[in-house]
């Protein structure tokens, strides 16, 4: 049974690559076809249109808009932003750093470039604002539509901060045009995305979904244990290099590039329902998700394992 898995071309979907490479899907009778996208947003759209069976990407405003209309169901987790893992970062321009922009607390009054309104970066910044008690209105948001645009802007000094994935930000740092200000995971922990299917798939192909999740969780467990220590911090263990090689091959980057950008994965792909509700509340408050719906409805409890609430 062929299953098309849509992912954005990045390290965050590592469990998928591992499960494919290790044959876990094949063992469940699934022929996995990974389809790469340049961004997360079109994956959600492609799942709705039926081109993709399962999506594994970050949340976006568009995702919630489609899920809110009942078109998408969350069945598992995606990466989380957690301390120690350098997925998304705050990169500060040389000029702004020299002028005293040293920590996330200093952000008010500065300009911040990121991809789009309602993106993971936008939400992360809002979490930081909650955490440090500053007003988002005091931040000049510069949505530049793509990560390279944002990286360009900070490299050229036309914005003070760019929030981009480490893969886009670190090359700028290496060229000496920017500095790392902070990592999102260190500042604000949150669930970055989800594994999701269309409502129709959830209702008509339950058996496939269950088998898919079994294989997928095996991959997640293997990946988690290989790159994460018992303290849930990154570790360099005996299997780490193998994982890096699998990811590098999948996304066409060098091992070195991948090793700086390893993402955290929950070993059981558990869904942090409370965090998702918080996200939806924020999107709604911003007017980015409209319409009346029950957020719980977008999570299909038949297939997912909830994240233990503290």
């Amino acid at each position, binding site marked *: 049974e062929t299953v098309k898995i849509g992912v954005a071309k990045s390290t965050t979907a590592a469990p998928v690559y591992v499960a494919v490479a290790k044959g876990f899907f094949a063992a469940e009778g699934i022929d996995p076809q990974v389809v790469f996208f340049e961004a997360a*947003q079109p994956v*959600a*759209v492609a799942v*709705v*249109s039926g081109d993709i069976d399962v999506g594994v990407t970050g949340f*976006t*405003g*568009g*995702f919630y*808009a*489609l899920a809110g*209309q009942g*078109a998408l169901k969350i069945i598992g987790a995606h990466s989380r932003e957690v301390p120690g893992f350098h997925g998304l970062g705050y990169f500060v321009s040389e000029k702004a750093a020299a002028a005293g922009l040293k920590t996330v607390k200093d952000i008010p009054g500065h300009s911040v*470039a990121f991809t*789009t*309104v*309602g*993106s993971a970066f936008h939400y992360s910044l809002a979490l930081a604002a909650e955490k440090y008690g500053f007003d988002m209105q005091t931040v000049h*948001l*510069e*949505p*530049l*539509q*793509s990560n*390279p*645009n944002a*990286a*360009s*802007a900070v*490299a*050229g*000094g*036309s*914005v003070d901060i760019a929030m981009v994935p480490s893969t886009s930000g670190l090359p700028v740092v290496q060229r000496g045009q920017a500095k790392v200000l902070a990592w999102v995971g260190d500042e604000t922990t949150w669930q970055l995305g989800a594994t999701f299917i269309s409502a129709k798939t959830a209702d008509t192909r339950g058996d496939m979904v269950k088998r898919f999740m079994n294989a997928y969780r095996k991959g997640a467990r293997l990946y988690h244990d290989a790159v994460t220590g018992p303290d849930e911090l990154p570790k360099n263990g005996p299997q780490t290099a193998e994982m890096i090689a699998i990811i590098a091959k999948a996304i066409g980057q060098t091992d070195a590039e991948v090793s700086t950008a390893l993402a955290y994965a929950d070993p059981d792909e558990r869904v942090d329902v409370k965090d998702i509700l918080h996200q939806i509340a924020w999107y709604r408050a911003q007017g*980015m*998700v*409209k319409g009346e719906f029950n957020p719980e409805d977008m999570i299909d409890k038949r297939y997912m394992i909830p994240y233990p609430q503290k």
Partner: protein
Amino acid sequence: MTEITAGGASVRREVAFRGGGFIAMPKPAYSWIAFAGIIALWQLAISAGWIDPVFLPSPASIVEALWQLTVSGDLWKHLSISLARIGSGWLIGSGLGLIVGVSMGLTSAGRAIGMPLVSAIYPVPKIALLPLLILWLGIGETPKVVTIASGVFFPTVIATLAGVDSVPRNLIAMAQSFNLPTRSIVWKVLLPSALPGILAGFRISVSTALLLVVAAEMIGAQYGIGAFLLTAGNLMQSDDLMAGVVILSILGLGFGAGLTALERVLLRWR
């Protein structure tokens, strides 16, 4: 007619009409009916559930989105900002395009140098160069205006050049035969004569400017029709998305009508 060609007794036959057709008369009623019909069908298809509104928002919800946009005052904010960008980009692009186009039309060297450059740079897609553009010009108004201006520049150059080329040689010979100075020939003969071509070019460049406002507002814009469209796309708010598209369409039609009026005034002599 065939009866006659067939010969026979001497008969009187009326000549049958065989002309007409092949000319389109304006039928504005048809246009309105067609528009109304399409919108009604579209609304029906969604109301009746033939089309899932996730895939295509209904006309009613697009109108609703437009209405929201208007009463919230956002429409004006987006529109005024975008119009300022389109206006300044278009003015700069057309101004430079006119100057370059006329210079290329007037001198052999100008044309020999300019033409291949224009042909080579014209087909370069602007969106692909956005990262470089940000590096060069930052993310303020400059790169936005430059994006629009560069899109406007090339069609203007080409239209102006074609306009200058189509100036009847005999008018220039006439001016020379009265010893008009070169400057006068350019201003009094060449430019007015090239004007219809230049105005035709404006039709293209205005559409281009509208198309590029989306690309331009990819560069760090919070407000503007393009930014609004992009955000709506990012958030999959397809009613807002279509509302933005409708606004762009109306702008396009409005600019087109404006140009038609301008032509009617400036080209009364045709």
